[in-house]
């Protein structure tokens, strides 16, 4: 029974992907997509009740339990959103039925890959999963077939592939480090085993390995200066994919990084992870925040804000310590909820106003109050204003690091402030003033967006103890 829950999380998307791919008719695909995502989510929920035993290939522990549920949940809400979104796209003829079928199949494949990456206990398997996820997202980003879309997809593809290659090299190195201790064969790639024995590994080799892993998976995470693919991929692809990219893919890549960091943390002699992550995190925060000011495309702007937040999270994990790690985990959760909500809103806006250009959108709170204030709330959340969740995590990061490393914390604060300025400067144009341009009616469903925002709002005020206890135990492991 227990294994079934775990298997189901992988099987449901895989099977439904196959079904969707083979479907003759495109109309029911959206519904099937939603249903499949819902079932995956429900099975994932069952993990809270009964924990399956983890084998050499799959595992469930405190760390990924939460992320599985989060991923499947956002997968579900996004599928709901994408149903209405894609419906509109067909209506205006931007997508042909064939593409719609293909899109939904890809969507489920992506879900499968993400879940696999999360539950994989074998670092090789994890790598494969991330690669598959990359490929599917590449295909989806390029789906509109416009020059911009193709260019974005191609850039994403090349940079992603290089990243994958580097990550694989890192994985091999980890295996090399583990082999003398654990011996040849499968065990030397099983994460649980690795963590147990990590203290005996050759620290120097692990350091080099981590450099490659940081660069490899960091490319997926979108850390500057490896970020180049991220803004365009977000801006040019279908909005549900932007939501999934920011909300899930970045998280999964970061999750992979965390797994390896835990190995390094377990072995005392290693130095690499902390400083490296802190530096890259700070660079990303400052860089991304500064990039916000000149953005003209609303989706690209929020893509940069994702880079900034990934920077904050990586900084938190780099600083380490129970509080900072907890904050990092919290921030991952909050960010993926908020950012996907924001992309939902942006998707609707782009459909209502028929453009993504910030300067062509204006007075949204007048023309579409619900949508406008929804996005406003999302922006307020993402810049880290209370009483929403991200404020809590940022509070924890900053306050827990300032006493230890004042200057680093100060730089982080500066970055957060710059980002706030940039985001508000641009969103003011969208939200307020005289309405601009045309306003098409839309039959969008605001449920997913407000569901996410409600969760974020609640988390800012009250965190369920279960979540916290899980996170704190993980935070301790993260060192």
């Amino acid at each position, binding site marked *: 029974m227990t294994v079934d829950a775990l298997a189901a999380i992988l099987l449901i998307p895989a099977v439904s992907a196959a079904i969707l791919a083979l479907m003759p008719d495109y109309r029911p695909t959206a519904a099937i997509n939603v249903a499949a995502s819902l079932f995956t989510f429900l099975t994932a929920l069952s993990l809270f009740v009964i924990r399956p035993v983890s084998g050499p290939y799959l595992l469930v522990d405190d760390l990924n339990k939460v992320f599985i549920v989060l991923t499947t949940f956002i997968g579900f809400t996004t599928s709901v959103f994408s149903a209405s979104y894609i419906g509109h796209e067909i209506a205006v003829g931007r997508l042909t039925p064939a593409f719609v079928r293909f899109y939904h199949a890809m969507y489920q494949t992506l879900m499968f890959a993400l879940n696999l990456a999360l539950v994989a206990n074998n670092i090789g398997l994890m790598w494969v999963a991330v690669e598959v996820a990359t490929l599917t997202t590449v295909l989806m980003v390029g789906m509109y077939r416009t020059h911009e879309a193709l260019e974005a997809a191609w*850039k994403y593809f090349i940079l992603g592939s290089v990243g994958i290659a580097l990550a694989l090299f890192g994985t*091999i190195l980890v295996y090399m480090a583990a082999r*003398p201790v654990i011996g040849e064969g499968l065990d030397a790639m099983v994460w649980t085993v690795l963590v147990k024995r990590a203290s005996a590994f050759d620290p120097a*080799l692990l350091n080099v390995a981590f450099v490659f892993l940081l660069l490899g998976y960091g490319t997926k995470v979108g850390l500057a200066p490896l970020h180049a693919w991220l803004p365009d991929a977000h801006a040019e692809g279908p909005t549900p994919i932007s939501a999934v990219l920011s909300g899930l893919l970045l998280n999964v890549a970061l999750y992979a990084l965390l797994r390896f960091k835990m190995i390094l943390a377990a072995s005392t002699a290693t130095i690499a992870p902390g400083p490296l992550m802190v530096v890259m995190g700070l660079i990303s925060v400052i860089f991304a925040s500064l990039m916000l000011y000149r953005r003209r495309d609303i989706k690209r702007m929020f893509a940069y804000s994702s880079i900034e937040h990934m920077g904050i999270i990586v900084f938190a994990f780099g600083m380490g310590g129970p509080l900072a790690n907890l904050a990092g985990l919290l921030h991952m959760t909050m960010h993926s909820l908020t950012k996907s909500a924001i992309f939902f809103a942006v998707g609707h806006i782009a459909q209502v106003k028929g453009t993504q250009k910030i300067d062509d959108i204006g007075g949204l709170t007048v023309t579409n109050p619900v949508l406008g204030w929804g996005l406003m709330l999302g922006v307020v959340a993402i810049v880290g204003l209370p009483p929403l969740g991200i404020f809590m995590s940022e509070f924890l990061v900053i306050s827990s690091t300032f006493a230890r490393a004042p200057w680093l914390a100060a730089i982080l604060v500066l970055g957060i402030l710059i980002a706030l300025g940039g985001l508000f400067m641009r969103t003011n144009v969208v939200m307020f003033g005289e309405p601009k341009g045309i306003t098409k009616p839309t039959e969008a469903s605001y449920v997913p967006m407000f569901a996410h925002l409600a969760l974020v709002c609640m988390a800012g005020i009250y965190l369920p103890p279960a979540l916290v206890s899980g996170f704190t135990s993980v935070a301790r492991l993260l060192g």
Partner: protein
Amino acid sequence: MHGIEFDVAHMLAGTLVLASFMMLYQDRLPALLNVYALHALVLALSVAWQAFIQDAPHLYVTAFIALTFKAIIIPVSLHRIIVRLGIHREIETAVSVGLTMLAGIGLVALSMVVMLRITPGADALAREDLAFALSVVLLGLLIMVTRRNAVSQVVGFMSLENGLVLAATGAKGMPLVVEISVAFSVLIAFIVIGIFLFRIRERFDSVDLQALDRFRGERR
């Protein structure tokens, strides 16, 4: 274990690095492709040799894939593509070759230092293999960076990936090697198809910003 198998493995790996250098040196596409075929061939040999000395039969599969897919199918199809795209006669105005070679040497030195300094524990064969693999990877990246042409960038990437396979096979008893090499072949196939479908030549990679802006979601 300084025996014949070590020397052969060493020799093959060294040849791979040498092939990478040759690729670095080539500035005409057809020649580049030929050298890449050679590169893949050497890889296949070394993988096979590893399979032999580690008596790990599944590695023969990897070797076979490398031989057929990389040494034959890919180069041939790429030849077709460049002929169709009409860029087979182009001389690439890359960064000057001399400079690139110097950089390459530097990279090899770096990888040697990195690997040999940090892996005193691992057995000699693995160390050598890793060192060579790393230099092949870095050289592959260097090729990608110094070439303007999408096709030659792809070639660079494939050589990089050869380096990875070398490392993977060198790592004694590493599981999933076959799967990984398969996965990579799929990846490369995608890339090649991508080039073929979207007629991607240097247009996305032109330094001419006018041309670039046409394909940019966001104007300056």
